[in-house]
């Protein structure tokens, strides 16, 4: 089974693909902070999802991205796909 997708992976990909908003600290406890509060709108999440798909060689459902309102939600969705793909 491929390595699990972690918060550190997500933070790196967010930084590469969308940068960080002024006044937002991604190193704070952000697991349950809504993406909108972190300054990421739907297009930033689309870009983030595309980068995750390329790097982990998976295909996320559109709804998986749309429904993931927080880092924890997105990490869980990605890990579900990694598990499914490996099964």
């Amino acid at each position, binding site marked *: 089974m491929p390595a699990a997708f972690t918060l550190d992976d997500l933070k790196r990909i967010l*930084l*590469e*693909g*969308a*940068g*960080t*908003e*002024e006044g937002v600290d991604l190193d704070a406890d952000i697991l349950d902070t809504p993406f909108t509060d972190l*300054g990421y709108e739907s*297009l*930033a999440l*689309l*870009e983030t999802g*595309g980068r995750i*798909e*390329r790097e982990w060689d998976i295909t996320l459902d559109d709804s998986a991205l749309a429904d993931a309102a927080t880092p924890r939600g997105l990490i869980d969705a990605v890990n579900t796909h990694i598990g499914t793909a490996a099964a």
Partner: protein
Amino acid sequence: MSAATQTVAVTGLGVAAPNGLGKDAYWAAIRTGTSGIGPVTRFRAEGYPAVLAGEVPGFDAARHLPSRLLPQTDHMTRLALAAADWALADADVDPARRDAFGMGVITAASSGGFEFGQNELRKLWSLGSQHVSAYQSFAWFYAVNSGQISIRNGMKGPSGVLVADGAGGLDVLAQARRAVRKGTGLVVSGAVDASICPWGWAALLTSGRLSSSDRPERAYLPFDRHAAGHVPGEGGAILILEDARAAQARGARVYGTLDGCAATFDPAPAPGRGAESGLRRAIELALDDAGAEPAEVDVVFADAAAVPALDRDEARTLRAVFGQRGVPVTAPKTMTGRLYSGAAPLDVATALLALTEGVIPPTVNTGPDPAHGLDLVTGRPRAAELRCALVVARGHGGFNSAAVLRAPR
């Protein structure tokens, strides 16, 4: 005073130019005749038919913008966002303290974000569609500078983009003035263009108007017998426009007022019709709009195409309106190259600084052809009492625009 004639003032200037980043550095360069034209450095231009450009020096986007904006912006948008910040600061305006719907953004563009688009197209064809940035959806687009300025500053009033090559740079100021007269308290306007990348270069070359010279001091010579095209540049200016009385009421510094605007289109070529362009009518309409006689104009900032037929047409037009050597004419863009939609807003900023400082910046390198009959300010700046300036801008395909500016009363 009726809304239709309400006076509109320019209260803030933000400049990103090849010979100066920021208003003060630009003005210091412009008034001493310092050029920013040199060999292209933004990509390897050796082997292309044109190898010189006016590139904005010393711009480190990460110093001026949050990292959130970097993955989603082309170079031209980064310059525009920084210039908008500077213009707002110069006008002493804090957008967060104003009504979002009372502020608009109306900018011009001529190419959009070519370098960003080129990089994404390269990824599309070399790596596949999954590698194309989601931000390609807007980062290349003509309207992107208006959109990003409006988002960054929370401006939700009348906004848009105009695309008319160089003339669009004046047309947006006319549109901004309309918006102010219809009740929008403040409009961010002007333009920044930048497409010095292989794809942008290939597009610019199709005009057939780029100089093939590799000597910066001989490459862009408007109104000279040796005129043979222009040098492309990047940059422009962002201006803050406000209702003049409101500006006065808040104690703002007023650089000048935008008193006359007009735009015309050249007639289609037809057998038996004279060669006169629509430029004269644009100038006369702008003067009329400002309630100004030609004799009131103290200086003209020329379009200065450096294409012989266009130079002749512009010179003939200026002679027809102002008389033989009837008004000082200058083209400071000889120090920056032509900035496409960014050129006219920069000329307006330059004109306003000239009105403030009482000095006409020079046209560099050109030795004017006497046959043009122009009093071209060459070599060094000319001190003069300046109250009224005319700015002329033309666009490829027949666009003519003119603007009349007056010093604050």
